[in-house]
């Protein structure tokens, strides 16, 4: 976990942006900045969660990091080498080391192919014939994700939601990747099964040492799966740090609002469920200055005109708020928000 000083992070984003131009040449629709100037780093064996409301750009960021979508500006580096401009052969070799797990396993799997065959498909695609047979590889992968090898001959519709997600995870791990992007992998599952998949991902990560991005809107899940968390608002990272520390003492007013909105079994006295007014504005009309200012109770004049930079507020923590440094990082309180 502690890389030597000269070793670059496993995956790094530098000023990474993705801008969609809406409509055709003559369209009056403004371009949509889905991801804006994101800097982040994922170290070996580390799990970084990306959280935020729908439309904040978290899934687009995940696809950009995998090179599945071209960046409009900035770059992604894998082991210090830029993905952009890499020869096709090297790109394919790299792709085997980076995998994606989706929210909806039913859409990710081929309905007409037995799941066993699908799990070893990446080995064929990446021309990585296993020492043994396909059958052996299937057995090993199924065992790794806690599935009985007897299920290999079944079709996706014959499995439960949890079993299907295990198949998708097994397939992502077939090429023994170093980096896996999990895009809301447990959101569609029942609570009792969700906990199984959380435990599975954590266990696999411990055994195999891959690094990952865990995209989620559920802070409760993130708390138990990630080492660090990055909070996104309208395409930008507004806060970042170790997950336990950020969720216990969020520094950015937006993170404070997210944390306070989570339904709790036990709520301390005076710690009411917080209501953040309004919807997140569209990425096509990002407010000036701090994008969060129209919904922020602490907003001052400067927030309307100047965009705050993501800067350190405490060791290992950073926040993009003009007042994070002067404000005591505290558990979210009702007083700090407009009600």
């Amino acid at each position: 976990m502690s890389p030597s000083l000269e070793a670059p992070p496993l995956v790094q984003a530098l000023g990474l942006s993705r801008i969609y131009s809406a409509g055709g040449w003559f369209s009056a629709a403004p371009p949509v900045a889905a991801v804006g100037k994101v800097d982040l780093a994922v170290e070996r064996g580390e799990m970084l969660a990306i959280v935020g409301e729908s439309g904040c750009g978290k899934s687009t960021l995940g696809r950009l990091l995998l090179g599945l979508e071209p960046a409009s500006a900035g770059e992604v580096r894998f082991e210090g080498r830029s993905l952009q401009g890499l020869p096709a052969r090297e790109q394919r070799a790299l792709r085997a080391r980076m995998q994606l797990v989706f929210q909806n396993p039913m859409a990710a799997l081929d309905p007409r192919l037995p799941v066993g065959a699908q799990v070893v498909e990446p080995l064929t695609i990446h021309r990585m014939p296993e020492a043994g047979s396909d059958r052996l590889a299937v057995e090993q992968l199924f065992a790794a994700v806690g599935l009985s090898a007897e299920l290999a001959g079944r079709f996706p519709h014959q499995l439960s939601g949890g079993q299907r997600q295990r198949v998708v995870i097994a397939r992502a791990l077939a090429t023994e990747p170093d980096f896996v992007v999990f895009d809301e992998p447990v959101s569609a599952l029942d609570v009792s099964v969700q906990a199984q998949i959380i435990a599975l991902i954590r266990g696999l990560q411990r055994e195999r040492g891959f690094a990952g991005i865990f995209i989620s809107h559920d802070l409760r899940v993130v708390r138990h799966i990630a080492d660090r968390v990055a909070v996104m608002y309208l395409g930008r990272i507004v806060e970042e740090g170790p997950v336990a520390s950020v969720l216990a003492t969020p520094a950015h007013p937006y993170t404070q609002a997210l944390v306070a909105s989570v339904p709790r079994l036990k709520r301390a006295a005076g710690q009411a469920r917080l209501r953040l007014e309004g919807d997140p504005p569209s990425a096509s009309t990002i407010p000036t200055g701090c994008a969060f200012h129209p919904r922020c109770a602490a907003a001052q004049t400067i927030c309307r005109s100047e965009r705050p930079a993501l800067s350190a507020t405490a060791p290992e923590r950073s926040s993009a708020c003009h007042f994070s440094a002067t404000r005591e990082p505290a558990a979210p309180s009702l007083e700090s928000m407009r009600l």
Partner: protein
Amino acid sequence: MAGSERQRGVSLLEARGLTLASRSGEVLVDGVDLTVRSGEILALVGESGSGKSLTALALLGLLPEGIVRLEGQVLLDGVEVTGLSGRHAALRGRCIASIFQDPQASLDPRWTVGRYLGAQFRRHGTAAGRAVAQASAEMLARVGLADSRRILRAYPHELSGGMAQRVMIAGALAADPRFLVADEPTTALDVTTQSQILDLLEELQAESGLGILLITHDLGIVAEMARRVVVLYGGKVMETGAADAVLAAPRHPYTRALLASMPDIEALQPPRPIPGTPGDRLPAASGCPFQPRCGEAIGDCAVRPPVLARHDGRSWACHRTELPPTQPELRRPHQQPIRERALVSLP
């Protein structure tokens, strides 16, 4: 008890022994009892296959094609309303409104919000003619959509998820109902929007005495919203009682396991999974539906369905919850039936 409540002006929506099955004979909801009182939020908790949505549809008289009611009744203020048709069904529609998980999918994409709300008022006869526009605007304001002129002209795709759910709530309230069945109303929404919608439901319940059946899989929402809770599993009631009491000291192993499997934002320990899936069942409903996944199951659980035991305003259906869960060596299965009878006879 129900009679005295009605005399006090408390309206009641009840399911009694509700049993629903598919045409092929598979029992999906098995003997469910529940009571929603006006001015109260009752949470109905369950995972997929628990029968929570079918129970809701039966209360609304909207059972889907291929689902039949084998037994049981739905009562509104003590009057049976199961299987009503025509004028009486419409009357029930006025008393019991509903909202669902995906508001965008429930709205006709070709209709503006104004046309949708207007149709709701006219259908229930709660506003007519020129009063409809005014009533629609007022209803939007009541559900927290202040910019009513713009929203009345909007099409569903122009609304955010939270706005669409508010429009659905406005449409449901157009009938001036006494009860609202809300089936996972915030599951598709962001946590910040969820918080707004939950606040709105609480306000409506407090202000207008609406009785709400809130269907959810999230025990955090139960803790924050509900006065009482019914926990369903495999079509059967596992446990019921005051929400705070049930969540603080669950009596049924399923409620305990479900609580432990919920990730907590503050807890250090990770969520504890329940082995298996909600689809794991015993053959032909022979015992307790949770038996295949229960870590505390004993011999009886696979062969005999547990009876709902009642005590202190709570009830639970388990062969062994009267035994201390920490001392499994004490269990003596042959004594179970006697204890059960003793518990059932308590007032």
